[in-house]
């Protein structure tokens, strides 16, 4: 039937390029959510007197909403550069566990070193949550390009929203402002709950919420997230190994 197939047998209809498929998957709620966040960041950059190029660059390079808010807020308050850097270093620590946990999932056989660094750069709350949800259904050899395409669409939309916000964002009525700011927590709460399937995943979600109350009361900001993550995640991990075999 076949004479020594060199490439993979193509019995299925041809699929679009995985990067294109990823980009298409980003259109919708994920890109809307990040756009809403970044419109505000663009307005913040303008308010501190930064040029529009710097606003766009902050989204492309920093790619972390909270860090960008800290940066522009600190610049406005006249905080010294090393102090800003230290505050952002602490607030961005979450990227270590987030990136470590998604890279092995996104990695394809034969993915290049530069692709891994680019994928790591693209990690944000949005791409992490969506990546964990979508990547397991993507064939392994297509995952890296899927994730890069997906993230490029997200970060591209976010950059455009930053530029748009720079020119257009003015004070919105309080009710609308509250609804926009609520997008982030409701989206992530719903996504994290929607992704939880097994007992250990449920435990991590529930403990993450419950442990926050004492952690916020006694720990400084930054350390509280890390403590909740490590304690909650570890208890959840024990819940798995005691009661269930490895997945």
């Amino acid at each position, binding site marked *: 039937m076949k004479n020594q197939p060199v490439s993979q047998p193509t019995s299925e209809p041809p699929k679009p390029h995985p990067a294109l498929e990823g980009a298409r998957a980003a259109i*919708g*709620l994920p890109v809307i959510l990040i756009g809403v966040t970044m419109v505000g960041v663009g307005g913040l950059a303008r308010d501190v007197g*930064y*040029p529009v*190029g*710097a606003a766009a660059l*902050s989204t492309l*390079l*920093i790619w972390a909403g909270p860090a960008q808010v800290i*940066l522009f807020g600190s610049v406005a308050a006249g905080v010294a*550069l090393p102090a*800003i*850097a230290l505050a*952002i270093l602490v607030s*961005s620590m*979450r*990227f*270590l*566990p*987030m*990136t*470590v*946990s998604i890279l*092995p999932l996104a990695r394809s056989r034969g993915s290049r070193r530069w692709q891994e660094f680019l994928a790591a*750069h693209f990690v944000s*709350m949005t791409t992490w*949550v969506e990546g*964990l949800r979508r990547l397991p259904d993507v064939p392994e050899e297509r995952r890296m390009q899927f994730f890069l395409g997906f993230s490029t669409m997200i970060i591209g939309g976010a950059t455009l929203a930053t530029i748009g916000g720079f020119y257009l964002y003015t004070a*919105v009525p309080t*009710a609308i*402002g*509250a*609804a926009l*700011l*609520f997008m982030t927590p*409701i989206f992530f*709460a*719903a996504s*994290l709950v*929607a992704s939880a399937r097994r007992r250990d*995943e449920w*435990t*991590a*979600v529930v*403990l*993450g*919420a419950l*442990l*926050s*109350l004492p952690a*916020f009361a006694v720990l400084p900001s930054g350390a509280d997230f890390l403590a*909740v*993550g490590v304690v*909650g*995640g*570890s208890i*959840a*991990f024990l819940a*798995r190994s005691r009661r269930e075999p*490895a997945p």
Partner: protein
Amino acid sequence: MSGAVIPVELWPYLTIVLAGFLPTEIWRWLAVLAARDLKEDSPFLHWVRLVATALLMAVVAKLLLHPTGALASVPLWGRLSAVLGGIAVLFATRRSVISAVLTGEVILISAGMLAR
């Protein structure tokens, strides 16, 4: 390093690279090194993923319990019922995130109007 040597127009860009990009990116770079030999199904990776999940729930809790800006104008009961209502709809709709987000928003806006 002083403003006399570096043109003042470049300061915003330098600030973004030195105080924003590097302190954030270093964690992602470290993660590439740490993840180098990790297999997708390793127990350590599983633990890290659970840590990240709990950590992000804490970020969500912070945004809800200690909101900034306009969200603070909605009372705590309003914010909490909006997120719980959204999650209830999540289960009623076979985990439709968009339905949960829309429901949460409707509850939040209603609560904001009631509280006024």
